[in-house]
């Protein structure tokens, strides 16, 4: 399940706010009663989409919302504790390999796209883990035990 980059809570669904305007002609009838006549109804217009249901903050999803909810597209803080390893443009997050979208990422938020090809992902994962082990040999071996 994806997580909100702001509050860190697991997200099962996303909220969106829509607005609609109805125009009425309001008058008094002969008996002095108020009459509401519906004159026009606008189309529904999105006010804010991709809102975390827990903290109500907008999550900057530049891709398909469905991809985000399926964790193929991830938005994370760079210091997220679930980031297992990082090398160059690749990150291992929850056991899966993601590539950092540098065009959309910012210093505060990483935008990650899942590496779908399993063989490529395995090669990158091994490479990232090996380089992590060279730098800090105890971390991964402790995790594997």
């Amino acid at each position, binding site marked *: 399940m994806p997580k909100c980059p702001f509050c860190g809570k697991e997200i*099962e*669904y*996303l*909220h*969106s*706010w*829509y*607005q*609609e*305007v*109805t*125009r*009425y*002609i*309001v*008058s*008094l009838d002969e008996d*002095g009663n*108020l009459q*509401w006549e519906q*004159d026009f109804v606008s189309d*529904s217009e999105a*006010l804010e989409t991709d809102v975390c*249901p827990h903290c109500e903050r907008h999550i900057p999803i530049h891709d398909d*919302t*469905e991809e985000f*909810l*399926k964790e193929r597209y991830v938005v994370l803080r760079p210091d997220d504790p679930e980031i297992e390893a990082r090398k160059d443009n690749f990150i291992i997050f929850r056991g899966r390999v993601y590539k950092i979208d540098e065009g959309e990422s910012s210093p505060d938020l990483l935008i990650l796209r899942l590496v779908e090809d399993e063989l490529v992902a395995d090669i990158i994962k091994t490479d990232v883990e090996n380089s992590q082990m060279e730098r800090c040999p105890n971390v991964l071996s402790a995790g594997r035990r």
Partner: protein
Amino acid sequence: MPKCPFCGAELNHLVVHELVCTKHAYKVHSNGQWEWQYDDEKGREYTVFCPECYEEIPLHNCISDVEDFLDEEYIILRSDDPEIKRKGGLALFRGKVYKVIDESDDGLLYLELVEDETVADIIGAGLE
């Protein structure tokens, strides 16, 4: 018939915009199917306009004041409206006595009809 405080038009009706905000939830299930769910949480805002000049008529309590405004029991006028005779917190407008309940910085008077006829007659005589 009430008049618009901006264009002075006589109004036999008002235009009211109702803005409804609805929260939707976008869900993707584990089998890949997705759906929109409509939440009951709705926010409504009303805005009242003059049908002639389309200026917003700044009623204090939008919906409850609409009927009183059309009934001329609660009216909004410019403080320099030539049809007003004013004395302190009271005003005479088209032969009826009103109490000034608010006066905005932009020169609008919010007036409420004095319903008691005897009181209105006494006050009205003093304002004539």
